[in-house]
């Protein structure tokens, strides 16, 4: 009981602190963003000041986000004892680790596998979720809230708890050791997520555009594909990207449901990198592999990022 009280006390304190931090950090900053967005206007002293603040914050965010990655690149170029010594700039440019990783015949195939599994998972999840979220967001029927909660409940069990059940399912379907085993099992966490996010965004779209389409005699399918989809691009791309990364990084199912080296995915392939002996951890190759597998994801973001900022501004829809 005392335990509970102290616990509540501390958490309330934390909460107060967070509210404070939020007010202190976010709002002045928001002000800065709005002011700096005003750059077309006259260059007032305060405008310049906020502009500087803005760029400092951008630099900080980028620095924090990529420093560990930078450090991984650094480490990937080092070997042996060098790895145990902290440094900030490259001490050597030794591609040995990259060679070691890329010459493993199964590593490249694991990237191909991951791309395939993650892509199919995301496409399937988005397809199923778009139609379902249309129904959940735009059509009135009883028990919608309960249905949404049930869908969410699927994601509430720890992954390890559903492992043995899924293993049986996969065996029963005869898809053990195929990419389909992974695609099937990944829907357990991608589908609830995509359905919920898309439902939320779909619900917020203005009613007028749908009404106009319906008046023109459009079927629900046409409403979804011709009217909503173009407006939903930011949400689609964002959820797709997040779900893609989720599938790309999944480890436990991938390890359990595949057995052939050529069927394995990237996280398992990385875990398979090993030192010469049991206790040694091959830092250099692991870092090199991480760098290699992060690059396709960065490319993906760069390709799709335009779509993230498309959406309503492009549609020119009146609110």
């Amino acid at each position, binding site marked *: 009981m005392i*335990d509970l009280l102290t616990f509540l006390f501390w958490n309330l304190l*934390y*909460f107060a602190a*967070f509210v404070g931090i*939020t007010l202190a950090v976010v*709002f002045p900053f*928001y*002000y800065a963003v709005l002011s700096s967005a005003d750059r077309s206007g006259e260059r007032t002293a305060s405008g310049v000041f906020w502009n500087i603040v803005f760029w400092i914050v951008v630099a900080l*965010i*980028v620095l924090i*986000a990529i420093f*560990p*990655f930078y*450090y*991984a690149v650094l480490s990937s170029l080092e070997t042996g004892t060098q790895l145990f010594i*902290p440094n*900030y700039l490259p001490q050597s440019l030794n591609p040995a680790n990259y060679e070691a990783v890329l010459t493993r015949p199964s590593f490249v195939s694991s990237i191909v596998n991951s791309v395939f599994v993650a892509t199919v998972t995301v496409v399937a999840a988005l397809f199923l979720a778009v*139609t*379902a979220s249309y*129904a*959940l*967001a735009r059509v009135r*029927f009883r028990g919608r*809230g309960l249905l*949404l*909660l049930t*869908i969410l409940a*699927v*994601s*509430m*069990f*720890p*992954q*390890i*708890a559903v492992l*043995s*059940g899924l293993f049986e*399912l996969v065996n029963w379907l005869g898809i053990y050791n195929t990419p389909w085993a992974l695609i099937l099992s990944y829907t*357990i966490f991608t589908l*609830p997520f995509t359905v919920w*996010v898309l439902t939320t965004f779909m*619900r917020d779209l203005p*009613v007028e555009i*749908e009404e106009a389409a319906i008046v023109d005699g459009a079927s629900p399918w046409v409403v979804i594909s011709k009217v909503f989809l173009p407006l939903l691009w*930011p949400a689609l791309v*964002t959820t797709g990207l*997040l779900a893609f990364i989720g599938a790309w*990084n999944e*480890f436990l199912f991938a390890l359990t449901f595949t057995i052939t080296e050529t069927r394995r995915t990237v996280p398992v392939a990385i875990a398979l990198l090993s030192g010469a002996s049991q206790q040694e*951890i091959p*830092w250099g190759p*692991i870092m090199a592999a*991480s760098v290699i597998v992060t690059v396709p*994801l*960065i490319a993906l*973001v760069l390709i799709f*990022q335009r779509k*993230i900022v498309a*959406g*309503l501004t492009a549609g020119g829809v009146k609110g």
Partner: protein
Amino acid sequence: MTTTISANPERSRGRETSLQSQRARAAFWFLAPMLVMLFFVAAWPLFRSIMFSFTDAEANDIFTGGSEWVGFDNYLSWRVRDDGSIRWRGVLADADWWNAVWNTIRFAFMSVALETVLGLLVALVLNAEFKGRGLVRAAILIPWAIPTIVSARMWGWMLNDQFGIINDMLLTVGFIDSPIAWTARADTAMIAVLMVDVWKTTPFMALLILAGLQMIPRDMYESAKIDGIHPMKVFFRVTLPLLKPALMVAVIFRVLDALRIFDLIYVLTPQSEATVTMSILSYRELQQFGDYGEGSAQSTLLFLIIALFVLLYIWLGRVDLSGERSK
């Protein structure tokens, strides 16, 4: 003065019943594939997991049967020791379990709060128009993109007391006099875990919030600006209310993930008392000890706790689940 764009079509008066039922039928067919898929994948594993929690199943007999029904013994039971004293057993009588529950809740609370604040901040930056925005957006996503098993190890390395770069930095700057064993000490282990989790998952938050920001029509701001409304006021009266649905759903999924946190802690501070979580205990019980009865009981309790939190959150946050309450 809230400008409403989130009205529902059915709110409009004078809808004909035929149209209504046609839409309902369409809705059914739109929902069906998703529900069938989800049921197909999830029903058996979830059902099984709950069933196991009432049996004495061991890893060796989960596929062949042979386990016995033990009622609620995995949750709570007792035995009499040789000296006549009573010893309580089962998950609910396990001090480690309660320690894990508090750890998990503390972790979830703090990480989600920090990630929301920082995610909002990052999203606001990315929503502004500036040169190189695409690159910044890609850079932001890197922490989320690196597989957890790798980033946790990487951070473990960076936080190491002897050859870690974080200690090196803090020492150089002069914040500390001697290196800190971040992941080893009970009082810093949780901070280390929080730090890494915030670093890793803020992009997730930021991206979802950004999508929410992008869905707010630009002309809202324009008209507010023309009216000369103070930006702070715009933030509270326009941005935040319109952002709320996206924010809420992002927070729900973060809470869900945070309460189930496993891999990061499993790699970074394995089995440290200060950071052990419910999922870790459950993993240990199922995968290492092979005790499917107790492990499933833990998973089921975790499920119930998460469900409780989500319901509480939806209720307190007035999340509009059914869309009936639209303004």
